[in-house]
Every structure is written in C-alpha cells, then in structure tokens.
C-alpha cells in the first residue's frame, strides 16, 4: 500500500475543507451535548428518583447503532448537517451526563455546607462552587466525548455528510488507498490536537489542582 503524494498535494484545498467540516460537526455536537447534559445532570444530581431514569435513558440511546440513529432521524431533518450533529450529540450525552453527575457528586458535602452557611444561595453555589469543583471530572467526560465524536463523524458519510469520512468511501470505491490513509491520519491528528487543547483548557481553568502542597 503506497501513498500517492501527488494526490495529496493536488487536493490540499479539499482536504482542508473536509477537515474543518469534520471538526465543526464534532465540536458542535459536543457543545450541544454539554448544553443538554448540564441541566439534566443538575436535575439527576439533586432529584434522586430521576437519576436512574436519566442515566438509564442515556445508556439506552448509546446502544442504538449509529447508522440506525441517522436513518431514524432522516424523516425529521433529512440529508443535512443537522442530522449528523443531532446523531453525534445523542452519543456524547451518555459520557457527558454521567461524568457531570459524578463530578457534582464528588463535591465534598462539607464544602457545599460551608457555602450555604456563609449565606450563598443555591444557584450561586451551583455556579461558583459545585460546577468549578466538578470541572476536572466534567472535563474528563468532555475529552472522551470529543474524541468519540471526532471518530464518529465519518459514519455520517452514509447520509452524504461525514467530513473526512468521505475520503474512505472515495478510496474504497476507486480501490485507491491514499485517501483512506490520509483520512485516518487526519482524523487521528484532529483527535490528538483536540484532546491536547482540552487538557490545556482544563489546566487554565483549574489552577487549584496544579501546585501540590509545598513545604
């Protein structure tokens, strides 16, 4: 299997477009996933009876095969980017919801109690104490969800989208390995870079976890 380097240099514009499109689909899905899962996680964290229901539901959604999700969405949103993003968002939910709930659970009761005893109202406690302290666990979920979404975008090739995934079908149809290899490498690079950026973001957002006890 050899790589046709001239094909790559002839298609740099296409490759750039596909990469950006791929990234956009994945990131939009993760952001939407966060927007949906944050309030759901707060509810699941505070209302015990709903917790099992919400987490169970996100698990069930996760078990639906990805192609089936896109097919099921077709009558709703057709062969569009929207279908891709909704499908991916559903997949990110299971990780984001579970990690956000666990992150909120991990905030020490003593700390929440102190916030209350100082006269902090519940919403402010959530925003300024609970969510910041849950951030490391939430970010772990965001990292998994992002990498997962980046790898899953390709599946949307079946509905005419799929970002870099289009390179795979192109290569298979023409029995020409170069686009497939390039697609795999670019997807991997995207995942690695996105993950590195998220690690950096977490480092910036959680200064208290950096320095260990100094003498």
């Amino acid at each position, binding site marked *: 299997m050899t790589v046709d380097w001239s094909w790559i240099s002839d298609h740099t514009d296409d490759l750039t477009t596909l990469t950006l499109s791929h990234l956009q689909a994945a990131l939009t899905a993760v952001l939407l996933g966060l927007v949906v899962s944050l309030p759901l996680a707060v509810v699941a964290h505070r209302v015990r009876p709903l917790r099992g229901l919400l987490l169970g539901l996100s698990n069930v959604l996760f078990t639906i095969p990805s192609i089936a999700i896109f097919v099921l969405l077709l009558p709703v949103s057709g062969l569009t980017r929207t279908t891709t993003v909704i499908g991916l968002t559903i997949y990110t939910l299971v990780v984001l919801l579970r990690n956000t709930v666990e992150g909120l659970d991990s905030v*020490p009761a*003593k*700390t929440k*109690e*102190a*916030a*209350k*005893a*100082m*006269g*902090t*109202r519940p919403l*402010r406690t959530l925003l300024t*104490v609970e969510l*910041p*302290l849950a951030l490391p666990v939430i970010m772990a979920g965001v990292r998994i969800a992002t990498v997962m979404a980046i790898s899953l975008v390709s599946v949307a090739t079946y509905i005419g989208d799929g970002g870099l995934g289009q390179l795979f079908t192109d290569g298979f149809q023409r029995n020409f390995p170069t686009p497939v290899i390039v697609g795999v490498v670019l997807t991997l690079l995207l995942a690695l870079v996105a993950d590195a950026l998220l690690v950096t973001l977490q480092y910036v957002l*959680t*200064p*208290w976890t950096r*320095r260990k*006890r*100094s003498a």
Partner: protein
Amino acid sequence: MIQFDTVHKRFPNGTTAVHDLTLDMPEGGVTVLVGSSGCGKTTTLRMINRMVDPTSGTIRVGGKDVLEQDAAELRRSIGYVIQQSGLFPHRTVLDNIATVPLLLGWGRRKARARAAELLETVGLAADAGKRYPHQLSGGQQQRVGVARALAADPPVLLMDEPFGAVDPVVRTQLQDELLRLQRELNKTIVFVTHDIDEAVRLGDRIAVFRTGGHLVQCASPAELLARPADDFVADFLGAERGLKLLSLTTLADVPQAPAPEGGAWTLRLDATGAPVAWRHKDAESADIPVRPLRDTDSLLSALNESIAAPSGLVARVDAAGVLTGVSSRDDIHEHAGVAHEQGREGVPSGARGTARAAQDDPHTPVKGPGQTEPRAEDGTGDTDADGAPAPTTAERSA
C-alpha cells in the same frame, strides 16, 4: 444576645435532637455546648443560623426571631467555623476569607483588602493569601476558617468543633489564639465541642447536653466543676474534675518565700536571674530541670510542678522570667483546697483563668455557709488535710 425559648427539634425520622430547650447565651461571652455525640449540641448550634429549622419554639438573635429573616441574609450576618475548616478548595486563601464580604456586595477590591487585614489578625503570613487551602497545614487552614468567619465583622460567631481535627499542640495554640482574639473583638461565641477540657478552657459558660437533646446544666466552668447538677454531668466531667477546677485558678495568691540556701537542694540561676535547675548538695544525682511559673499560671500547673520538684518547691518568676521566690507544696495544696471550697459555695474564685474575667452566674443563688453540704464525691479529703475544716472562705484564706 441569643435566646432559645422552648425550642424543640424532631427530625423526619422521628428522633428528637433537641428537647424543649430554653437557654440564653449572653452577649460578648463564649457559650460552650458540650455532650457526647447525638446529644443535640450541633443541632442547637445549627438552628441559630437556620442550617436547621426548629420544629417548635423561638430562637432570637439580637432580639429578632431568626425564622422571620431571610435564611441566606441571616447566615451572612453570623460567622460560622466548621471542623476541618470547610474551606473552598478552588479558591485562594484570600478569596476564601473574602466570601461573605463578596456576597454582601462589597466589591472585589474592598473584600480582598479586608481579607488581607484578617490574615494578620489570625496570625498568618501575608503570602499565605495567594495559596490554595490544600497547600496549608491543618492548623493554618483552621485559622483561615476563623478569618473567613470574621470577615464581615459579625457580632455572633458559631464554631462547630472547629479544632477537632488538629493535633493537641496546635489545638492548644488555636485555643490560645481564640481567647486572644476574643479579648480584642468581644464577639458572642457559641462553641460546640465534645472535649470537656476545651470547654473549660474556652467557655464563660458551659451547657452540658444529654442524649435526646436535654440540657442538663448550664453554668460557669468553676461552678460546673465544683457543683455538677447530677451524676450524668459529674461523669461527663470525669474523675479529674477537681484538678480541672484548679486549672481555672491562678497562682497569684499563693505566698512565696525566698529560695532556700544550704539545704539538700539549691536552685541554680542563669546570668539573667532565671531559674534553671535544682542541684543536690552532694552532686550525687544529676540536676533536675525547673519549669518556673508566673503568677498567671494555674494552680494545676503549680501542683504538677510541686510534685515533680525534688524539694516540693515551685520556682516563681516575674513576667521577665526572673526568679521572685518559691512556693511550698503545702501552700499550693492549701490554696487548691480554698479554690474547691469557693467553687462549692458558688463564689467565683478570686483570680479566675488568665483569659477571662470572672463572671457571676445570675441563675445560681449563692448559698450561705450553713447551707453548704459538701457532696460526698467532692470530699476527697482535702478539707481535712490541713486541720479542722474552716466554715467560710474568708476565714480560711485569712
């Protein structure tokens, strides 16, 4: 300042945490709530700032019913210190201290300036302000907890076993610091502990609770130790409560004499006149180090030192540490006896603890000498040790 009027708290699971509690906590005083776990002392404390609401009864802070106030605003007006400090791990020490001022809308600059000021008040270095709580020792964290509670200068301070998680040495330091702060700030402090020694050390008044949320006795430390209301309180105070009582009386009134010359033991001094050690005239045994005592030290320390000293003599020094004389074991014993008798009669002993002014208990009528019937377990024999028991304190110390 804080008044409980027939306050009852029953939790949804049916347990009664506090049973018809009526208790006044005076302004500017330290009221310590003690008792074993599950006795309702913490629930009582938490009802003051509405972390728990009572089932029935009224609680007033500064004359105002707490239930008629907005809970969050009430809490901002009351300082709160909890065990293991409960600091916010994601905020710097300075921002932790600034919590309540920020909630009150002081603005970040003013709140931080106030926080920096408080670092010094609680004895922390200025550069500690930029650190995160986990970078500090347990004792330092507890100081930050106290600073945070003091930030908005609340008149009332609630402390829930604040020094429960630090080692004994640091605990003593923190207790001393609290007493020093209290002399400066004169807050109304409610302090929960299960440690009776801590209660005796810090409290102007001690309220003893029994399981089921019953208040058994509320009295000054001296009165509590000398006249426990019942066997439960006596047991709680422990077998050494007679000695604990001595920790409340200072050495100041015990007479002193010049250090002995030419006896079996002589007191060696250093160049400044501070006592160093006892030396035997035959030099057959090694020098025995001396722990000199000041007038502000307790009779308990004096008793301890007199037992340890080979001659039975306690070296007394002035504030600068220079020898002023020695006191004999007999004199110390005699004063210990006087302290006990005063306690039994409900008279605050002449010079109470170094930190606090003596406080009369208005609820306890002072019994006349004729009514005084020493309790059996109090009569440890010390009344007879120095001859016939004297009927009154005045005659005794004359």
